[in-house]
């Protein structure tokens, strides 16, 4: 048996001395050596020549590929024996080595011993370990997944503890340290020239397997591999700067040329779509370069079908009978497992990073000052808690944790209390949902809506998330509202929990007791219910209440010591503020105000800090991104003169009825919990100012409350003149903000009181008594609120709206926008109002448009004429405006009805209820003025919004790159 070491080197002087020494130190020495240097510009060639002799080193130019280099080296060897292999002469082996692959002294010995043990093996590979760490495993055999992923079967960064030390048959082994029978290498035509650098090992192994050859990995042989090219440490003309491109190109090519003929069409489609998906994946983690490489790779392979076909033809000739390739490929489920891992990583990173702000600030502080830790309570238990919340799969630990059980109980009870939301609900500010998600999409895309007499007022911004969610939920629009109303409260409580933990950490190095967090989370979580927003169907306020703690949590990221994380916080805040503002635009306006105050205060207190662009930049950028994210709503809103919509909230009018007592006690109207529960919280927030240790942060909370109060007071004086009514700006947001601030203040201030309960003897009895009283009072707030909500049946929500128009008209109006129904209510004495019903009636998302839409003067005049002195000309006007029926719901005004009865062009129509009067317009119906339209500007705005959302999502996404590289 002869073993010829074949070394290919290129700019490898960093590693070559060790590699050459390693070869020389083999316990089973090589019988011959041959080296190819592909145009190294450093001392590589000299080093190899010095070690192996100049006659054994062949210099080729820098564009030589690895396959070419190997072929060239083989050509210089004496011709292989042509005698029959069974004569025992088929014993000539080539040991391929890279200039960055350093064999262990026993490597070749182990490989050659394996030849004797496994005489059928034609290709053998060593175990590759990382160089220079020498400990971590790189590869113990290779295979390829259905998506072309190079699969090693190893965990990332797995240490070699002998856990993979069983020799086994594999699809392929790395060329670094590969011991291959020379005849097999030549029979298979060496490595494929189409794969100059990467992936030729898998392709070779696959071809070998298809030819019936056996490839084995022999873990007893160890080679340390620097993976210089893969890691981009070494750049060659072949790798260029885009190693990822080369790798993916190679993978795709390998998959396509080696796939069986039957599987080929499927593979072609799958790899293409899979690659596009990977492009998206890379974009999500902000790896734009890799995304482009991926895209370039798939285009490069798919644009050259001839190369693939040529490769397939070449392989077809060599295919053997006993192919074992199929069984050696990675299992089909593996790519999905990788995808799942990726998503899990992403989710974990996303949920973890905000809470780390306090930790990192503390770490930074400790690193700066390194004071002795003042430990009130061990960090361990808190970490344990966190771990438990994040890793709740551990059922036993979960069940034995009282906090987790209480929170679980709260979630269950909150869902039970919100049980009316199972199924469709409507009422109060909540209109009926449209029949299909497509209706929301259409509403979002249209620039002119076929509502009323046709209007250019944009659809409210929340229509987009609703439409997207409804699409995800299988087109069920009702499920969107149900999930919002069912889950908003647990979600808000979760956010409050996270926020309180971080705030607690930020404020005080001592950790607040976790029961306090539970109290705060539950109390805040219940705000939408106890305020009455839930019962009044004010889904905008409900959604904002759920989002607000998360927004605040994201905004705390502005205080992160790391620049990158501050910027990431900016995009996360932008997303959350935009989402909140989609429901209640005041969220953005208030965020602007708070940002102005905070930055102004910072400019006053620490002007030097603000000189850093990376300090003031994130909040400013985040808030300025909001209008871009909401562009298709915001811009037309202003240009159509509907700016009052900025001060309203989602849902139909009339707005909330908040007054002084409501703001203090956190009640929107009469449908909230008993007011004294709210007073308790207000009292607690005031008492939170008493303890000196936490007074400053509590005052900060109160300052936020003051800002909210001033804004509320100013808004309370504003009157918005809408076409249908005059209304006050929505104040529901401020109720939520004040409640949230009160909860935070109470939690922060409670520490001193709780200490009196804990170590009682140190304090006077009366102080302990007061503390106990306050604790009881505090406990009453969430318990009372939850209990009230559970038993309270008094809300404005119903299953279905009362039908206004007869059923046959509803059916007729579905036929087209020109089949509108004009509904006129009221009487001559008290005034009449009218609304046009088209399609499936006025559904969620359309109320806001209609309430802001300008009055159509001509149509208004026509209705006025209709109810005072109707003529047949008026009937024609109605027909032209796309009105098919006129309905006077019960009780119909007799005078108006008599007038309509006497009008030519109106034919009496039937109604289920005798006191409801209806007429059919006996004139041709037109829809010219009301038809749906989408302008070019709208399309531009939608594209801008879509791109902005994508970009911000990508920018806000947590970093995974670092983890991937480790």
């Amino acid at each position: 048996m002869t073993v010829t070491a074949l070394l290919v080197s290129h700019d490898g002087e960093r590693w070559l001395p060790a590699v050459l020494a390693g070869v020389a130190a083999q316990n089973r020495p090589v019988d011959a050596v041959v080296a190819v240097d592909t145009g190294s510009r450093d001392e590589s060639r000299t080093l190899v020549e010095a070690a192996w002799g100049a006659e054994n080193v062949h210099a080729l130019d820098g564009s030589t590929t690895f396959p070419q280099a190997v072929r060239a080296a083989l050509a210089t060897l004496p011709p292989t024996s042509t005698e029959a292999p069974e004569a025992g002469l088929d014993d000539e082996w080539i040991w391929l080595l890279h200039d960055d692959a350093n064999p262990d002294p026993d490597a070749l010995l182990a490989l050659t011993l394996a030849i004797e043990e496994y005489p059928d093996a034609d290709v053998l590979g060593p175990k590759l370990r990382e160089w220079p760490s020498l400990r971590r495993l790189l590869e113990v055999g290779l295979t390829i997944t259905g998506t072309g992923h190079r699969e090693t079967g190893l965990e990332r960064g797995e240490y070699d503890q002998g856990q993979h030390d069983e020799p086994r048959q594999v699809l392929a082994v790395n060329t670094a340290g590969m011991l291959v029978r020379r005849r097999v290498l030549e029979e298979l035509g060496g490595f494929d020239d189409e794969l100059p650098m990467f992936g030729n090992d898998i392709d070779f192994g696959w071809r070998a397997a298809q030819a019936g050859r056996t490839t084995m990995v022999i873990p007893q042989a160890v080679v340390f591999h620097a993976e210089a090219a893969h890691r981009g440490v070494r750049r060659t003309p072949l790798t260029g700067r885009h190693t990822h491109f080369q790798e993916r190109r190679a993978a795709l090519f390998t998959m396509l040329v080696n796939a069986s003929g039957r599987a080929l069409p499927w593979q072609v489609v799958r790899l293409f779509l899979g690659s596009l998906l990977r492009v998206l994946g890379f974009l999500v983690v902000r790896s734009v370069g890799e995304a482009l490489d991926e895209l370039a790779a798939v285009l490069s392979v798919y644009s050259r079908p001839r190369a693939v076909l040529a490769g397939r033809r070449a392989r077809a000739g060599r295919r053997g009978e006993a192919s074992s390739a199929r069984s050696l490929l990675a299992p089909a489920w593996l790519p999905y497992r990788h995808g799942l891992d990726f998503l899990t990583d992403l989710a974990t990173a996303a949920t973890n990073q905000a809470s780390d702000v306090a930790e990192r600030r503390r770490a930074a502080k400790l690193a700066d000052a390194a004071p002795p830790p003042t430990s009130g309570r061990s960090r361990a238990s808190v970490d344990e808690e966190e771990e438990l919340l994040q890793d709740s799969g551990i059922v036993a630990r979960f069940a034995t944790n009282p906090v987790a059980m209480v929170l679980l109980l709260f979630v269950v009870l909150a869902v039970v209390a919100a049980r009316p939301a199972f199924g469709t609900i409507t009422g109060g500010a909540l209109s009926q949902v449209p029949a299909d998600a497509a209706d929301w999409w259409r509403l979002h895309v249209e620039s002119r809506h076929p509502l009323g007499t046709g209007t250019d007022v944009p659809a409210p911004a929340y229509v987009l998330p609703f439409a997207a969610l409804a699409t995800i939920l299988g087109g069920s629009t009702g499920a969107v509202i149900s999930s919002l109303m069912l889950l908003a409260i647990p979600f808000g409580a979760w956010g409050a929990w996270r926020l309180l933990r971080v705030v607690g950490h930020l404020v005080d190095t001592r950790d607040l007791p976790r029961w306090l967090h539970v109290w705060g989370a539950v109390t805040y979580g219940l705000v939408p219910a106890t305020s009455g927003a839930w019962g009044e169907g004010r889904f905008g306020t409900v959604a904002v209440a759920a989002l607000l703690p998360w927004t605040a949590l994201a905004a705390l990221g502005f205080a992160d010591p790391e620049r990158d994380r501050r910027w990431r916080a900016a995009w996360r805040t932008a997303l959350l503020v935009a989402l909140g503002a989609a429901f209640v635009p005041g969220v953005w306006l208030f965020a602007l105000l708070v940002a102005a105050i905070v930055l102004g205060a910072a400019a006053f207190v620490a002007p030097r800090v603000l000189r850093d662009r990376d300090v003031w930049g994130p909040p400013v950028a985040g808030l300025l991104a909001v209008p871009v994210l909401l562009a298709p709503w915001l811009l037309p809103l202003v240009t159509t003169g509907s700016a009052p919509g900025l001060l309203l909230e989602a849902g139909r009018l009339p707005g909330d009825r908040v007054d002084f007592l409501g703001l203090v006690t956190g009640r929107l109207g009469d449908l909230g919990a008993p007011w004294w529960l709210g007073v308790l919280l207000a009292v607690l927030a005031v008492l939170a100012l008493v303890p000196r240790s936490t007074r400053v942060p509590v005052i900060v909370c109160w300052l936020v409350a003051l800002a909210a109060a001033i804004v509320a007071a100013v808004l309370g004086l504003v009157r918005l003149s809408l076409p249908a009514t005059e209304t006050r700006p929505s104040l529901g947001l401020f109720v939520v903000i004040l409640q949230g601030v009160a909860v935070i203040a109470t939690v922060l201030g409670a520490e001193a009181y709780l200490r009196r309960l804990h170590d009682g003897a140190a304090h006077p009895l009366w102080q302990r008594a007061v503390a106990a009283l306050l604790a009881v009072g505090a406990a009453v707030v969430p318990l009372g609120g939850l209990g009230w909500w559970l038993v309270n049946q008094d809300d404005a929500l119903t299953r279905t709206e009362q039908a206004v128009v007869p059923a046959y008209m509803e059916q007729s109006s579905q036929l087209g926008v020109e089949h509108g129904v004009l509904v006129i209510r009221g009487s001559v004495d008290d005034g009449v109002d009218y609304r046009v019903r088209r399609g499936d009636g006025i559904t969620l998302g359309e109320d806001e448009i209609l309430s802001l839409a300008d009055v159509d003067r001509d149509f208004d005049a026509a209705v006025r004429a209709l109810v005072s002195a109707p003529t047949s000309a008026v009937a024609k006007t109605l027909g032209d405006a796309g009105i098919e029926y006129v309905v006077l719901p019960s009780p119909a005004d007799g005078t108006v009805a008599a007038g309509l009865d006497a009008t030519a062009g109106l034919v009496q129509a039937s109604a289920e209820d005798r006191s409801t009067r209806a007429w059919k317009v006996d004139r041709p119906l037109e829809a010219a003025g009301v038809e749906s339209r989408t302008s070019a500007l709208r399309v531009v705005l939608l594209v801008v919004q879509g791109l902005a959302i994508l970009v911000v999502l990508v920018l806000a996404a947590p970093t995974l790159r670092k983890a991937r590289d480790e």
Partner: protein
Amino acid sequence: MSETPEPTPGRRSAARSLSRRLGPIELVAIVVPLLTVAALALVRPVDDATTVHPPTDVALERTTLVCPTALAGAKTVSLADADGASGDVTTRLPDEDTIALDGTKRVGKSAAVAVQATEDLASGLLGTRYGDGVATSCRAPQPDQWFTGVGAAPEHSSTLEVTNPDGGPAVADVTVLGPDGPVDVPALRGVTVPGGRTLRFDLAEVVPTRDELALQVHVSRGRLGVDVVDQVDELGRGARSEDWLPSQAEAGTAAYLLGLGGKPGDRTLVLANPGDSEARVQVKVVTKESEFALADAEEVRVSPGSTEAVDLTDLLEGRAGRGVIGLRLDATLPVTATLRTLAGGDLSHAVAGAPLASRTALALPGGPSRLLIAGADNAGVATYVVTDAQGDQVADERVELTPGEAARIKLPSKGAVLDLTIQRTGAVASVEVGPPGLAVLPLSELVVDGRVPDVRPALR
């Protein structure tokens, strides 16, 4: 991390402690919550948007008057404009036609007549059908009206006539009240009148009864001119007379029934109580000088949903009845009322008149007539102008009105249009026409304005 300080002894140390406590932070801790609450206190409760938006008045655009089918000898319809405007009016019934109006136009038509005027003529169009001791105003279709004291027996029977002036169908719902409560009359429920048609219902046929009845006619679809012809046939004595029974717009607690004529006769007061409780009604007589209760008159009790007939023949006979021009009713609950008089074989009705506020007008039938005014609630002035058929003024007078007093003014026989203006008070007025015979025409407020409701887009 300091704790709340323990109480320290000594005034000086207490003072020092206080000053230490009231540092800038503490000051802020006190001021900020106070400011917050103060700011919140500025938020006023939402004032409810007014839900009532009164209509605006504009010049009437279009008026339709419906005159009933003629009675014997009453084929004449007198048409005029209260403001003396001239122009064309159109008749829709009995046939489509145009009538040039300049001054007063008298046309002879037996069938029901529907006249329509637009623009200038709309606000003052007047019409009266009359002749031979009978007369009735042609009125615009009303959605609701009452006819009290109708009969359904051979000796006293009434006929309900409904005329649809429009093209489309109209529906009337007639509620019948009797002495024992509402009477179910299927024939009068949901009466559909095809466009341009007149339907007549002889009550003696559809609800034969000797009782005094009251009808409420509610037009639920379209528009209908509604009239009732009342007929008395004293079978034995051979006296037979008929006249139109004027309608009353709505029940009221105070009512003036003007127009008793000068002659003595059989007088029957019929009251109807559409409410749910018993109504008690005080009857007074109205003379030029005063209103007073007759010594023998008792309070009348009207059961809920029922009618009550009171024979006032004896009370109003002789001295007591001299100078009486009407009755005044004061009821505890809204009632409707008619005083039916059969004097000298001629039937007439005094019906509770609608209160007048500013102006009324009437196309006068030919012959002698008298204007009765009563029920002034303040000291005020009534000014009347009578013009002849050519539009020339033939009489005018200013009459002082005083509460508790009434006026009875003789109008010139050749007068064709009466225009009465009331100032500074409300009043009730009627015109007595005759002899021959007696017909009473209650006056109602002239509708010169069309009411245009406040129209706005709905909130939801």
